[in-house]
């Protein structure tokens, strides 16, 4: 089995790319996809550590993360659709109602 360092490095890289996506991109949908990317990086770390410790807990946590991600994406896409109905944009810089 490959060393744990490699898996954790891969997880860190994917998580960092997700962070960069949230910072750089201004399209709400793509920002949302970047959040999914970050969730997946964390899942990867859970699975890697869990399989090395011989414990099923990591996989159960990943199962719950996937469920919560499904709920989160349903609600998030609902919010995006309702934003689009009201403001006709998915550009994060155009949504300035609450900006001081």
């Amino acid at each position, binding site marked *: 089995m490959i060393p744990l*360092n490699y898996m954790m490095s891969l997880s*860190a890289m994917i998580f960092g790319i997700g962070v960069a996506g949230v910072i750089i991109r201004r399209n709400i949908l793509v920002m949302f996809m970047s959040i999914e990317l970050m969730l997946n990086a964390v899942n990867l770390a859970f699975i890697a550590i869990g399989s090395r410790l011989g414990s099923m807990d990591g996989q159960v946590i990943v199962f719950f993360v996937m469920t919560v991600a499904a709920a989160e994406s349903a609600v998030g896409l609902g919010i995006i*659709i309702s934003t689009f109905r009201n403001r006709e944009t998915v550009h994060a810089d155009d949504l300035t109602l609450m900006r001081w």
Partner: protein
Amino acid sequence: MPPFVYIFLGALAVVSALGVIIQRNPVHSLLALIGTLMTVAILFIAEDAVVVGFLQIIVYAGAIMILFLFVIWLLNLQTEVGPTGHLLLKFFGSIAAALFVTELFFILAPPHMQVKFTREPTGYGSLASLAGKLFTDYLVAFEVTSVLLLAAVVGSVALARKLPGTNDPLEVRNTAP
């Protein structure tokens, strides 16, 4: 699985993750994201998490991504117009993210990291062992998850429905010739 396959899959995952944030067209971003999810699922299966890997393919790449695709089509976002952000923001955002990744390297993958290897028990990663954990130790969390999903369904329908008496850009756009 030989190590070079791991390296190849990891490189593939990173490249397609970069594709998510680099491409301008949201549909292409979504395709790249599906690539990342599939690659990570294969890594899950290689790490003896077979059930979770297949669930990842079915639930994530199958269901959630199709939901994304429906929303992209519904909002007619296939072509992104206008600027995608300030150049300065991109520059400093990339630097901040790179610093963050470096920090994560030092925290998560230090060269002297010691992990006590334990032999996996027989049946590790099987459906029976996952379900056994799920219905004994995590029973409360499992039941609460069902309530969470129900709340998410009701909430998303309530959020996305059309309010009466408002002019709706979706309808105007979709009925226009």
